[in-house]
């Protein structure tokens, strides 16, 4: 399973990074989200893989490390706030710059009429 | 949630009862504490959200309603088997169709119930509701006779719903 988890995180990272390197805001935000998934999984597995163990007292046989889970929760919330912010910023940029390129380069409207 | 002026203390008794049941179900318990808490919530939530629910819902014939519920559940079971066979079977045999079902029901809520009932049961999905013209557009997966199907739906589902919810105000 460890290999599988590593592969999953690797693929998520790669896909996220590729999208981060695009020139338009929307794909970049998708890329950020994918990267966030990878990161969250990574934080999560920093407590190692413990199927069957729980983080609730009195449930299950053993206890898995609860701390990474708490960290992931914090990270999820923060990245949600950031995603929302950057998405609205992208809209603002679209309004101010006239297009959705991150560099505000394209002068001519790119939407089909 | 907005101003409390002019609010009913128990705006939706039926809903409240339903919610109390739901609370106990959700907590998987009938402990007294949860009765108290559930009662509190079943009152408070409808009370504070009453502005979101304009018309109150009156259940005229509870027994008929229960019978209708069981009928629908039975139909769902049958429908699923039928649809399952249709899906697994040869695709070319299917004869899909769109049906316009003219409505006798008047209230949003009952129409919605009808539409959902249709969607949940044999090979039919409500894809549109035209309130002004008063019809439902339903897609059937395998309809041999459109008129018969429409009549069946009206008789089997619309009629009971009308009796249950819309008798008092025809």
């Amino acid at each position, binding site marked *: 399973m460890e290999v*599988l988890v590593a592969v999953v*995180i690797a693929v998520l990272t790669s896909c996220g990074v590729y999208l981060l390197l695009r020139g338009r805001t929307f794909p970049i935000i998708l890329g950020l989200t*994918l990267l966030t998934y990878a990161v*969250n999984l990574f934080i999560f597995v920093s407590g190692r893989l413990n199927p069957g163990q729980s983080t609730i007292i009195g449930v299950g046989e053993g206890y898995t490390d609860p701390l990474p889970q*708490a960290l992931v929760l914090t990270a999820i*919330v923060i990245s949600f706030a950031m995603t929302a912010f950057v998405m609205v910023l992208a809209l603002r940029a679209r309004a101010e710059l006239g297009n959705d390129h991150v560099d505000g380069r394209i002068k001519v409207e*790119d939407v089909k009429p | 949630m907005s101003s409390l002026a002019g609010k009913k203390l128990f705006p939706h008794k039926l809903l409240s009862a339903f919610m109390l049941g739901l609370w106990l179900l959700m907590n998987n318990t009938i402990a007294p504490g949860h009765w*108290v808490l559930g009662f509190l919530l079943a009152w408070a939530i409808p009370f504070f959200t009453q502005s979101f629910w304009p018309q109150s819902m009156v259940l005229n014939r509870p027994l008929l309603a229960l019978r209708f519920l069981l009928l629908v559940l039975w139909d769902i079971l049958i429908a699923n088997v039928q649809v399952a066979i249709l899906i697994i079977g040869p695709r070319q045999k299917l004869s899909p169709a769109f049906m316009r079902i003219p409505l006798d029901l008047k209230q949003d*809520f009952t129409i919605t119930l009808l539409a*959902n009932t249709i969607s949940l049961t044999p090979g039919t999905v409500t894809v549109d509701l035209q309130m002004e013209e008063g019809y439902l557009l339903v897609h059937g997966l395998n309809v041999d006779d459109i008129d018969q199907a429409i009549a069946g739906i009206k008789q089997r589902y619309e009629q009971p719903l009308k009796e249950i919810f819309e008798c008092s105000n025809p």
Partner: protein
Amino acid sequence: MTLLSIILLPMVGALLPFFTERFGRTLCAYSAAIGPLCALGLLIGSAPSVFNGMVDYTYLPWLPAIGLDLSLRLDGLGLMFALLIVGIGLLVILYARYYLSQRDSLSKLYALLQLFMMAMLGIVLSNNLLLLIVFWEITSLVSFLLIGYWSGQTDARKGARMALAVTGAGGLCLLAGALLIERIVGSFELGAIFAAAEQIKADPSYPVILVLVLLGAFTKSAQFPFQFWLPHAMSAPTPVSAYLHSATMVKAGVFLLARMHPALAGTDGWFYIVTFTGMATLLFGAYNALFKHDLKGLLAYSTISHLGLITMLLGFGTQLAVVAAIFHIINHATFKASLFMAAGIIDHETGTRDMRKINGMWKYMPHTALLAMVAALAMAGVPLLNGFLSKEMFFSEALHIESMGMFSWIFPLMATLAGVFSVAYSVRFIHDVFFNGEPIDLPKYPPHEPPRYMIVPVEILVALCLLVGILPNFTVAPFLDAASLAVLGENKPDYHIAIWHGFNLPLIMSIVATVGGVIMYTQRSGLFAFYERKFRHDEKIVFESRVQLSVRVAQLFTDFVQNNSLQRYMALLIGAAVVVIAYALYPMTQFQGTLGVSDIEPVSLLAAIILIVGALGTVLLHHNRFAALLLMSVVGLVVSLIFVRYSAPDLALTQISVEVVTIVLLILALYFLPQITPNESGAKRVTRDIALAAAAGIGMGLITFAMITRPYETLSEFYVANSVSGGGGANIVNVILVDFRGFDTFGEITVLAVAAVGIYAMLNGLHLPLPQADGEGRRWDKEPHPPILAVMARILLPLALMVSVYIFLRGHNAPGGGFIAGLVTSVALILQYVASGTGWMQERLRWKYRRVAVSGVLIAALTGVGSWFFGYPFLTSTFSHIHWPVVGDFELASAMAFDTGVYVTVVGATMLILAHLGKLAQTSHSPRPATSKVYKNTEVTRGEN
């Protein structure tokens, strides 16, 4: 303290003129003179003890840690220079009173001059090399302002900048040199440095030190090849030129040479560098001075030449040469300052400085002419004038240098040659200006004598030239003696200044120079033509073009590096991460740690495949944004399933809720964005990005694998043990969130609230074109709120609210909590927005979401502060079990209040973001007709929607 007062007194004088100027320019001048006059008095008062060989010290600690202290000394050298600085400064103040026109601010000039005076005094009185540099740099800065005094003139601005650049650079070199000296000596104190002279000279870094210190001195004293700034500094007002560029600032360089003489001189390096630099400067200045048509230009090059002479003398290193150098410093200051002032008067009266136009001034201003001629003769080195004495000494010393063996004849030869030029340009100055027929096209005509007091400073200086020239032993001797003592210490030679040394070689050299100079002047036309052909280059243009070039290069470089492309920046950031990880992991041999690897379960494999397909699909379909969004949702769904699989129900709940809220958010935004991402990346870019993405992925994969196959010690046992007993909850994750690490959560909800505030601000006044049709041109459906959806959504609302209460309440002991409950509430409310619309909702829900969000943080904060009242730190939780009849046992925990804060913040923030984004369409506008392709955000029309 006297010394400190001497330095600070001009500072007082710097401020006074600002207040007195309104009462008249004369009073302004007087007030400006008060400070220097007092300083002069103090100096004169200290003179006797200095003449007796005493050195006056003052020490005030400033920054002992770095060796920078207010450590001052007044020795003969300092006294001589300080007197020059203050004395000539006073004359310049008087002179400037009449020189400056009414529209120029006198107080500003005085302030700057005195600031400069202060700095110069600081240089000559410093007993600490670093302190000396402090003042040194101040002179550079202030001279920049003085040269640029007439800032409206291009020449003034460029001249100022050039001077600052050159002297500033020199100052930096000097600083480096000083720091190197300090490394050897361990102190910047001059006494310590002199004491360690042998150590310094023996140190391997001595050559570097020497070069650095000399660079400082040479740039300041306009030595070849750094001389070019000085002629261009002549665009300064003449009082400034007289003061800075003849008497003081340029002398700072030679002062430094004299000051550091005990520590650095006496080596071959010193001899060769200093002597030959001086010689080159001497010749270069003298030669060029002859050909300048600008009066001040001639004087400037002459100054360069004389500074070269002094430098050369200091380079010789012999004791008498040092004495001669000091002597010449004094002499040059007097005659050159008076010449500059005279030139200023002529300029002032004629309106030009072009010697081709200025002729026959003898007729118009005989008094000035007489004075100027005497000074010019002093400059030429004519007997009975001070310049003659020091020049004789120079010739004599030049003859005595034998260290070059058979090539030593070069010194007297070059000295004589320079003398020839010196005489020639002096003669030119006298003849061209005061005789040579009638003036041509003067801007002001006829010129006449200046105001009486304007000429007084010149008179005083010329009188000094004569006095020193005739009676050296009654005037300058004690100063010279004391100064020489300061430089040479016990090695001070016995010497005798006399007008007549007999008919010796130096005298012959003088005669040759004089005769040769006159002859050269008479034969000047050929030389002038030659010079015009060969040497017409303007250093200012060269300097300016160098600066322009370096600015261009810097711009090309910066524009190239910083091309404003986020794609590049992003690639660099990710690339940096990849590089460091690759670097770190490179030595790793064994990626798998000691923990065993568990088998792959089929269902997990299936989930992984779905996730990978989802992720890859998102990338492959990313041009179709909506489809990509859908595929990304799959990834989110599977991630939450993975969380479930590995015993993290809280994470799963949060993930799935956030996922949906995010999707709603992205769809809301997507409406205003293009539906398709154009294909803009070339193959090269795509290849690069794939490579980078792959590298990042591999890096992450390796790290993940290596990490999770290694054992680690955790704190988890503590949390398990204390969750119930200390935190009052069975859900350890939740207890960590609201208790053990509640502070993180506290920060996290602050982030959420601030994001909401920021988004609110960004949405304020945002107008976007409103798409009337979807990506393929279909008009939107006419029905905004399908009734079936609306009805069902309303039914769901109370149910969902109940679910959120349920999740909130059990959060402390089972999966759930304020955050998830908040999201469920938000989603239920958002569903109402979607189903029934903003208008409908606004009638029913009048919350100010921003306030709600902030109130949540406030609740959490106040809960935390509450623990203070029990004497515990912020966020200390408490809980107790209460038994009520019928209801039974239930738990009250302060963490619950904190969690309420979380809940409220989440609802407020989420609702603010989504609801306000939803309202965006109402404030946006219809798109322009298809003809106008360029979108301008200035034209804003309100849409009907």
